[in-house]
């Protein structure tokens, strides 16, 4: 093809870059960690040392609001016109997944805040530093009797936030690698996997540092379970693209074989994100050595893998159009 006259750069530009990948990751991390925290809270494991489970709930209640605030900040700064973002709040388009996302986030974000304050109610009251916030604390305390309802509501909102980031991309039929019905479920699953990992990590590092090997073993297995559901989903995702034929299967083939991003997929997403944690777990389970260090490294590797999946999907989608 020859343009004959003029630059053709605009026809192959990357319009959504690293900032969007990080936002998708953080939104997933936030919803994943709160979902995992709630699941733990509802089915608390009494049989082993239960304190690590408490730590996971605390971790989730902190990670969720921090991650979503950070993500939204990055998202708004990345807009071509950051200061005009208020239009998102005053005009809605129900056919736009982005608009739906704004609605979900308007519900989700305040609830994760309230949930955090509920979890840390005693700590908050203890510190004189928070004294000026007393009225706020009282408001939160008055919510205490609704805690269960808030939790159910939060769970639903978190599911919406975790999956909307997938629908955001899959709604675009102009981009073959994104236009897959499996993308939302893939994103949700990997969000859960990053949620498990981040809660274990933060829980171990900040809320409970000495725990018994029994629960370490359990945490390692927990990390692994979500990875084992993600792997077949990724397989199905590409198989679906191949069977779609035409441009779509061509784009999928390129995305798995061509250039830098194929490398990121095989080494980053598959190797580091899924393979390495599996190997760690197998070695740990075989040799019966359960060190906190294993769990910490394992969790970080899982989180890195989830981040790379978002990067890969965002960039490969825009580059390989078939």
């Amino acid at each position, binding site marked *: *093809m*020859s*343009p*004959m*006259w*003029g*630059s*053709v*750069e*605009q*026809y192959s*530009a990357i*319009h*959504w870059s690293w900032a969007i990948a990080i936002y998708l990751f953080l939104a997933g991390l936030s919803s994943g960690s709160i979902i995992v925290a709630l699941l733990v809270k509802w089915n608390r494991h009494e049989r082993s040392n239960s304190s690590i489970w408490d730590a996971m709930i605390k971790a989730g209640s902190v990670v969720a609001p921090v991650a979503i605030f950070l993500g939204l900040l990055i998202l708004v700064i990345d*807009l*071509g*016109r950051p200061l*005009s*973002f208020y*239009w*998102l709040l005053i*005009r*809605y*388009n129900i*056919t*736009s*997944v*982005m*608009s739906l996302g*704004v609605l979900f986030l308007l519900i989700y974000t305040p609830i994760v805040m309230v949930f955090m304050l509920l979890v840390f109610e005693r700590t908050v009251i203890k510190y004189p530093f928070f004294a000026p916030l007393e009225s706020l604390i009282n408001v939160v305390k008055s919510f205490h009797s609704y805690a269960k309802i808030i939790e159910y509501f939060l769970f639903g909102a978190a599911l919406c936030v975790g999956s909307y980031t997938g629908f955001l991309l899959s*709604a*675009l*039929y*102009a*981009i073959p690698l994104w236009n897959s019905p499996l993308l939302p479920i893939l994103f949700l699953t990997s969000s859960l996997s990053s949620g498990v990992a981040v809660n274990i990590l933060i829980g171990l590092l900040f809320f409970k540092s000495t725990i018994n090997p029994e629960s370490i073993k359990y945490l390692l297995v927990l990390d692994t379970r979500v990875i084992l559901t993600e792997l077949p989903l990724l397989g199905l995702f590409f198989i679906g693209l191949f069977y779609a034929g035409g441009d779509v299967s061509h784009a999928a083939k390129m995305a798995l074989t061509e250039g830098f991003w194929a490398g990121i997929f095989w080494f980053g997403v598959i190797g580091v994100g899924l393979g390495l944690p599996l190997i760690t777990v197998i070695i740990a389970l075989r040799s019966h050595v359960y060190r906190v260090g294993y769990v910490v490294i394992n969790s970080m590797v899982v989180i890195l893998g989830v981040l790379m999946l978002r990067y890969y999907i965002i960039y490969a989608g*825009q580059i390989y159009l078939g």
Partner: protein
Amino acid sequence: MGKQYRLIYDENLCIGCQACSVACRVENSVPDEVYRLQVHLHTKGEFPNLGMNFERLSCVMCENPPCVSVCPTNASFQSKDGLVHIDERACIACKYCILACPYHARFINPLKNVVEKCNFCYETRVSKELLPACVSICPTDALSFGDMRHKHSLVHQKSHKEVLVFPKAHLGTKPKVAFIPNRKGMKS
């Protein structure tokens, strides 16, 4: 009832002179390095059995525009006449519509920092019963524009006489820009 605009691009008459692209830039003050309209050349076959196809790249004014359905602020909207426009005030430059457009018709105007694309020169010309700048300048009359409701319009007549191709018709976007495909030279 609104209008039924149609723009027909006859690949057989196009000589690739780029007058349309230049006229567009002047009419709409399009900044350097970005384009509402380009004409590309595709060469097929091997010498001496060659085929040369021209292709017009611009917004095709979808009847079912994906850019409009994804825009979170309704900054991209469809008018009663079926044309797709951008309300620059409400555009937050999220670029969602750029990604949603299967025709790569949209871009960010680097001076205004909002999304831009071909609008059939609606404000400056078509609303005043003038032809779009590209159509009026084309030296070979490869471009024709008009309202399909009028039986005597050029577009109506051409649509009856010629085989029209609507780009990426399988997507169901229903473009208002149609091509009369090249009949000469090697096809592949």
